[in-house]
């Protein structure tokens, strides 16, 4: 199982901190998996110009190919101006229209306040389902008040991240089950 953690912002620290914690937990939960951590702040991505994803080079090729090679993607995103950051939207724009097919996707969202709670539902989930991702229903929503001095201080956040990891892996297993059923049904 190939798991990618994608921290989708080039500025700020909350999303990265939450994703680093998720990475640590995931390694314990699923030690046999290959886990990759990509923080978009560490890469220089070009804007999508419509070419095939295999035709990019450098950082852009590394990020797009890591996504396409993943079985599970846990996306971390802040909310800026009532939406996901443009850097994260650009990542989706770089990929094929059905680029998330057969992949399980889950979301960890950080935001300044609870006003943004539904933003992932109306801004991020439609993109993921359009791209054929199998999206985990629940997501973790973390607010400004859950952090202090660049640390998560609300224990409930840790428990919610643990549950999200658990749900994500379970959904992946369920997807494998449906694949097996597909093979049985079609006979090829």
């Amino acid at each position, binding site marked *: 199982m190939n798991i990618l953690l994608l921290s989708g912002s080039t500025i700020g620290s909350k999303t990265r901190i939450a994703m680093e914690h998720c990475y640590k937990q995931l390694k314990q939960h699923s030690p046999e998996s290959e886990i990759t951590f990509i923080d978009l702040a560490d890469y220089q991505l070009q804007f999508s110009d419509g070419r095939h994803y*295999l035709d990019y080079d450098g950082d852009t090729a590394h990020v797009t190919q890591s996504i396409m090679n993943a079985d599970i993607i846990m996306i971390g995103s802040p909310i800026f101006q009532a939406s996901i950051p443009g850097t994260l939207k650009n990542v989706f724009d770089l990929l094929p229209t059905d680029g998330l097919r*057969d992949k399980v996707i889950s979301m960890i969202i950080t935001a300044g306040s609870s006003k943004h709670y539904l933003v992932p539902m109306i801004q991020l989930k439609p993109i993921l389902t359009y791209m054929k991702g199998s999206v985990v229903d629940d997501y973790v929503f973390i607010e400004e008040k859950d952090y202090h001095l660049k640390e998560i201080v609300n224990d409930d956040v840790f428990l919610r991240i643990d549950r999200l990891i658990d749900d994500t892996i379970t959904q992946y297993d369920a997807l494998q089950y449906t694949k097996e059923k597909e093979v049985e049904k079609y006979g090829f």
Partner: protein
Amino acid sequence: MENYKINPDNGLEFGIYTLGDHLPNPHTNERPSAQNRLRELVEYAKLADQAGLDFFSVGESHQSYFATQAHSVVLSAIAQATEQIKIGSSSTIISTSDPVRVFEDFATIDLLSGGRTEIVAGRASRIGLFNLLGYDLNDYEALFEEKFELLNQINQQDVVNWEGEFRAPLKNAEILPRPVGGSLPIWRAVGGTPASAIKAGRLGVPMFMAHLGGPVSVFKQTIDAYRQALTQSGFDPSTKPVATAGFFYAAETSQQALRDLYPHINEGMKRTNGQGFPKQHFAQGVDPKNVMNIGSPQEIIEKILYQHEQFNHQRYIAQIDFGGMPFDQLQRNIELIGTEILPAVKKYTKK
């Protein structure tokens, strides 16, 4: 249609195309040497010729897992090895070539083959060749349109005067040799969307439409859009041929056909396109209303006749060899086409 060497009275033409892919057989993970793959393509064309098929074409690709970068050279070998079958490209990436050289090459192949040669000109779906051959990707669309137009002008005029952005001007240029009938059939490759088909219609050139899977009705919209654009631009649709091209595989039963073909398509597409083919979609390929021609010979005959009724197209071109398909299976398919499918298709579509 005579300009394009097609007589619809003889019924729907049936052809074979290969992209010239050089992929491992997914069951063994081995692939032949490039030399053997190229020789296999010539043998494949010979089989198609002997089975009485109408057309055989070879594509140009400049990326890994392909062997026909010099597709016109391969076509030249095929011209020499075959007797009757029409041959062509599928497609020639005109955007990154000099139309003068392309015309010289294909006119030469036409002379060598006794007037059997055609060009299908396309834009490329992958763009590595722009860097390789020294072109700017920003000119993707402009390069194709200018060069395609020049290629058509060279085809129609013995003496060419031309000026454009991407090539030195031509002043009273005689582009030689001239092909057997004075000109070559030149088709525009279309990816299956109406937007792309309309461009072919506006120019009044024949359309070579590639399709993966999906309902016939969706591709009918593309063909309708092409013919509508022809009419709006002052051309008579009854004089402009349409060819459709897609996956084909015949076996004893449709289940067997799916089983035989799927791993080649899925693994091959993963390598060349970075994504496999969804199994559920592929399984629907055997549906009578699906444009993919996969099934038993009888099912395929019915599919092709249904497509002909809907499209009223002049040529269907089958892709069978993608993804390291073993040669004996290609042989078996050509045999089924020649002995069962082609005679039935001709019988019901000829006038």
